[in-house]
């Protein structure tokens, strides 16, 4: 931009206020509000060519947006939904998702960029001042409101006829009870359902992965096996509810490694079965450290020692994992010798 193109009155020398005006502080009241600073012109305000350039930039952005929308439609029609492409550095991604998202993003972004650029360069940037008014009403209005209210209240007689008032309050207080009653059938009462699982005397321990009943020789030292009670199938109506309580993890320890007496008594040849459901808030425990016999819940890191009654050795769980008493039936399969002795999963008020 050369200076001869700019009208004379817009040259710095001819302006009233120098750019970046620095007012020298008043001697008497240096901290007083000096008032609004003078408006500073932008290039677009004084140079029509600069303004034209901004106009073209805004129009270009809007045009790019239009093209991007056409690109969106073209992508939607032409790109197969199962095609994947390699994009550095993201990796292999869905081509359709990538194309649709980029074109939509560009179409939207360019409308926004155009509007903001328009506002910043071509619309007036002269600051305006508006007065505020107190939020609270003036005393006259306040007095009027109270007068009206008292008159209305007096006309209703609510203060005088106490019988009406009190019975109305009573009725209004009681009527929501119907709504509360209607919520009763949201679910059954807990009763003792949290105390029982599908395990019972004689139920075989079935491997969750193979769906085959487990024999002692299937459980190797150092392995972690997950089991479910015999007869529970994935396709069962209440499979999720039952497995949420009955899920079992089985490990084999050397009998001499078992420190807890009851644990040893409830085991079979060093094979122990514990509830898989964490006693903290119910995540399934799935990380087993075979050297230390510790299991770790991946959700909140509660750690249990399977060689010592599954007591908690770290983390937020409050009590040991319940153990299932197991034995071997006549045909050599592992079987439960009863249900868990205590509720599995997270603790609750009635647990005791």
């Amino acid at each position, binding site marked *: 931009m050369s200076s001869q193109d700019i009208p004379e009155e817009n040259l710095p020398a001819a302006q009233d206020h120098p750019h970046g005006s*620095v*007012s*020298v*502080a008043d001697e008497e009241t*240096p*901290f*007083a*509000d*000096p008032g609004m600073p003078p408006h500073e012109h932008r290039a677009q305000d004084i140079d029509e060519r600069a303004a034209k350039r901004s106009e073209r930039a805004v129009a270009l952005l809007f045009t790019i947006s239009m093209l991007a929308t056409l690109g969106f439609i073209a992508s939607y029609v032409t790109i197969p939904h199962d095609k994947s492409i390699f994009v550095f550095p*993201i990796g292999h991604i*869905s081509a*359709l*998702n990538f*194309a*649709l*998202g*980029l074109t939509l*993003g560009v179409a*939207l*972004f360019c*409308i*926004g*960029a155009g509007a*903001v650029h*328009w*506002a910043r360069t071509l*619309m*007036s940037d002269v600051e*305006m*001042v*508006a*007065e505020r008014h107190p*939020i*609270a009403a003036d005393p006259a209005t306040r007095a009027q409101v109270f007068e009206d209210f008292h008159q209305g209240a007096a006309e209703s007689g609510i203060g005088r006829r106490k019988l009406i008032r009190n019975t109305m309050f009573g009725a209004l207080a009681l009527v929501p009870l119907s709504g509360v009653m209607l*919520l009763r059938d*949201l*679910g059954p009462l*807990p009763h003792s359902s949290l105390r029982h699982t599908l395990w019972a005397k004689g139920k075989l321990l079935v491997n*969750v992965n193979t769906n085959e009943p487990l024999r002692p020789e299937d459980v190797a030292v150092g392995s972690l096996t997950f089991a479910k009670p015999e007869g529970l199938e994935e*396709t069962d109506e209440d499979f*999720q*509810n039952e*497995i*949420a*309580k009955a899920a079992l993890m089985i490990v084999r320890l050397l009998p001499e490694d078992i420190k807890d007496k009851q644990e040893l008594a409830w085991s079979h040849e060093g094979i122990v079965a514990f509830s*898989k*459901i964490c006693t*903290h808030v*119910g995540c*399934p425990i799935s990380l087993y450290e075979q050297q230390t016999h510790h299991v770790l819940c*991946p*959700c*909140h*890191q509660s750690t249990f020692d399977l060689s010592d009654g599954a007591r908690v050795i770290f*983390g*937020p*769980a409050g*009590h040991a994992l319940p153990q299932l008493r197991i034995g071997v039936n006549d045909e050599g399969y592992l079987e439960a010798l009863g249900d868990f002795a205590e509720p599995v999963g997270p603790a*609750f*008020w009635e647990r005791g």
Partner: protein
Amino acid sequence: MSTEANEAPRSRGKAPAGERVADWADGRLGIYSLAKANMRKVFPDHWSFMLGEVCLYSFLIIILTGVYLTLFFHPSMNEVEYHGSYVPLQGQLMSEAFNSTLHISFDVRGGLLIRQIHHWAALIFLAGMFVHMMRVFFTGAFRKPREVNWLFGFLLFVLGMFTGFTGYSLPDDLLSGTGVRFTEGAILSMPIVGTYISFFLFGGQFPGHDFVARFYSIHILLLPGIMLGLVVAHLILVFYHKHTQFAGPGKKETNVVGMPLLPVYMAKAGGFFFLVFGVIAVIAAITQINPIWAMGPYRPDQVSTGAQPDWYMGFAEGLVRYMPGWEVNFWGHTLVLGVFIPLVLFGVVLMAIAVYPFIESWVTGDKREHHILDRPRNAPTRTAFGVAWVTVYMIGLVGGGNDLWATHFHLSINQVTWFVRIFFFAGPVIAFIATKRICLGLQRRDKEKVLHGRETGIIKRLPHGEFIEVHEPLSQEQLHTLTAHHQYEPAEIGPTVDENGVERKVKPTERLRVKLSNAYYGKDNQIPKPTVDEYKEITSGHGHH
């Protein structure tokens, strides 16, 4: 532009079509008086005022994309076998909810994009609200007359968390199901009513067959309905109160300085909606979020490692992770403190920030309206409290990801957990003290600047060999801006003896208020701002420093 150019007298023909439509609407809706008050309404400009807009626009984006998703999503827990186009899950049993989410992701063209925009926008919505809330807090924008709007905003943040949680639980995938299980465990920990609430929420034992359908109506109807109402109320109050502004030349408590709604603010704010939407769309194009197909359908006996909630629930997750596992058994009952205390703390920590405006106004006893924002440094105790609160929140987030900290930085999970346990208490105290020191230091620097001017960095050597640093005096605009803030006097306990010599009892609440007031505004808790006399004394003898 064209309507302005056509301002010819109307006598010869009909008014322009736009005007006739406007007249029609005004005759029925009275839009002109509304437009008169608002069309050229002035909005002050500051980058931080944009944060609230990010929230508003991401909320709108969530509603738009959410409506689209409802067209394809089946909120049902009926078990079906998968036969869609994602090969690895062929033949798997899964709920219809999971099945339809896979359908949206793989078989509806653009469905994955909308899902990802929806989820990303939710994360940004919550993050925006958090940062916006902090902006309002640290600048004191919550003061009278805006306390109610602060509460509306706080409610939006809390409801947003629960809307997000119920939303990401809908696909019934392994990760979100684990989160729902955690919620059920937390509900069970509530004394007396826990099991009942759990059974009523899940329609029986966990997981049951109902929670997806119930969460669905909560997620798409109940909570967003309330939130939409609150957003509208929030905006109406912003309009009614007029926006706050920072101190500066020409800016007073009694005015508002800025740009008019039409055209500048409308173009900028309207354009900003498209900018936010555009950026989120690009993020959704290139950044995968919540790949439920990789996690598989939910089964209560399965889990993956590194399970994390969405970020806004990480604070609650942290509380649950680092709380010791206390359990008290008595008279056949169990008090599950290890889970119940975090549940209570979750509410207490959130409430602490919600009620803060009322505590501060009680301490100051200030009944005036405040429209000029504070710079955080000029309210050191408030700022220190805010940073302490953020510290508690962030410690919670660290605790919520303790496994990720351990695996990514090769730390011991036990040490990370113990660090968090200790710093849950120590962190906010350290943050409070450090922040207050920093604020007071910045106040001193402002005072120095006002009295001695700006350091120019120029060293001048005087004829007799002395070196002096040249300071440049500030302009009146700068002097005004740096000294415009109001400083409170600490409260004092009034006379304990009345005019008749009878002893008056000082209420404990009054003592507490005086104590707090001194902690806020007493000696050493704020730097007295420079007075005109100090300024004159220093500037009168030019050249002396």
